[in-house]
């Protein structure tokens, strides 16, 4: 009796176990698919120029800093790196500075025109935004913003602003309005209540969306290449030297782009879903 009852249970358990193994194997396989190409780029970046162009390749880095030091000392690279950081920082400030107040307003008030503002923000996502750089190139020449960090940062802000609005909107929505009201009854002005009660609670999330804005700008290629000539960012520099630069320069440059991005994504990993989950609705 008991032997008969045990068999299906054992079979189910076996199937479960097999399923678990399959699940873990799939997870590992997908992980390798993501990580292996990055590893190979890093191997190249950490090998000497000779090893990078040699054949066959070694699958382990020799930890020779030849490629990287060639890259850093290559004419224009240090400046391009600096420009990238500058543009990304400006983008971050602009996106949060314009986006966070809008996000707060959307989360706390009901007013005519709210729907159309949300529509305007969501509409940006149906457009290939980097193309904006083309008409703006002319506008910038007229206003003296051409080939400046702030000019490019303005275009990158168009990319980052919708995210900043939607992320901060959800952040503020997640903080009970009662907390604010309690502060008002205790004699705080609206601004004081915001600064002393809401802001500290929202700050980690705001920081995450700032990092996100920074990353968007750091990675952007098309607008950067169109709008900068002398003050090229790292992506624009790498793109425009693709034709003539040696392989080890490309790979070291690629690694210089990737490594900060890995750190950024790690820093905001907790918020990735909040960001994309909300951006859904």
């Amino acid at each position, binding site marked *: 009796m008991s032997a008969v009852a045990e068999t299906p249970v054992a079979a189910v358990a076996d199937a479960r176990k097999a399923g678990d193994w399959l699940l873990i194997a799939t997870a590992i396989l997908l992980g390798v698919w993501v990580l292996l190409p990055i590893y190979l780029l890093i191997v190249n970046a950490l090998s000497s120029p000779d090893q990078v162009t040699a054949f066959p*390749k070694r699958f382990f880095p020799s930890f020779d800093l030849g490629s990287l030091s060639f890259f850093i000392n290559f004419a224009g690279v240090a400046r391009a790196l600096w420009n990238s950081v500058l543009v990304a920082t400006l983008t971050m400030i602009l996106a949060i500075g314009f986006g966070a107040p809008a996000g707060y307003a959307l989360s706390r008030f009901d007013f005519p025109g709210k729907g159309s503002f949300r529509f305007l923000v969501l509409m940006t996502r149906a457009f290939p935004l980097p193309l904006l750089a*083309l008409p703006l190139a002319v506008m910038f020449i007229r206003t003296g913003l051409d080939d400046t960090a702030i000019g490019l940062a303005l275009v990158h802000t168009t990319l980052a602003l919708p995210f900043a609005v939607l992320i901060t909107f959800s952040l503020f929505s997640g903080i009970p309005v009662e907390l604010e009201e309690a502060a008002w009854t205790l004699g705080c002005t*609206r601004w004081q209540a915001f600064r002393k009660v809401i802001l500290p609670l929202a700050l980690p999330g705001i920081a995450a969306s700032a990092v996100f804005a920074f990353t968007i700008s750091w990675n952007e290629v098309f607008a950067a290449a169109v709008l900068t000539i002398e003050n090229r960012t790292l992506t624009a520099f790498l793109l425009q030297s*693709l034709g003539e630069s040696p392989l080890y320069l490309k790979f070291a440059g*690629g690694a210089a782009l*990737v490594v900060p991005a890995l750190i950024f994504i790690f820093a905001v990993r907790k918020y990735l879903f909040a960001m994309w989950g909300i951006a859904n609705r």
Partner: protein
Amino acid sequence: MHGKALPYLLLMPATLFLWIFFLYPFALVAFEAVTRDGAFTLDNFRTMAGSWKFPATVRNTLLLAAIVVPIQLTMALLMASVVSRLETGRSAALYVFAIPLGISDLAAGLIWLAIFDQSGFLNTLLSSLGVVDRPVMFLGYQSKLTIFIAVALAEIWRATAIMMVILVAGMGLIPKEYYEAAEVFGASPWQRFVRITLPLLRPSLQTAIILRVILAFEVFAVVAALGGTNLPVLMGETYNWQFTLQDRNVAAASALLILAISIGFTLFFLRVLRVPKEARI
């Protein structure tokens, strides 16, 4: 003191910004596309379409999107299912799968260049396995097919994460009870996926597909890094018209074409994957 005006004040910076740097430039680009020296003309479109590269450009872009997006959708669904079923190591898997989200398309192109280059890792692997005698030139101007495959792989690698994150967020919204009920009635994991997950995931699927398809038409730096000019795509040709050929009217026409295709596909997917209000969770 400023009750009613406050939300508008808070929204003003973002709204003004989007008008100046989003709506106005698009009006400008449309205007530039249909004029030349101030007079209305369709010559820009004729010049664009008359270029010998144009048919290949449109074909490559559409074909790339048609091949890449379905594969990405499948992989993203697989990744999201794996993540939502993992019990241990869930957040680690999530972080690893999300990494390409932070990686620039240019960097992704360079990463896959390290693999597909003549002295790259794929050739090393093939020759150590004895498949080839000497390194194959995968990315030469005569090997359009392998360039296409390399670009497709790099795109799949780079941009699956964005869909995965949206789908994971969407799966989190599906009530657990549905799965439990299905399990009680003996539904297999596959049946649960097809009958519960897919239908209820429709809003997220819609967002993910639209976002991804638009990005697919913007493919640019990956192609530049891997194929140079050997695999012309729309965004790359737009860049060429602006820079190499210095004709911003034709560049604007080309930009408008990308825009039209993007909006067309957005409307298409909004309609095909429409979710009735009452069917939302």
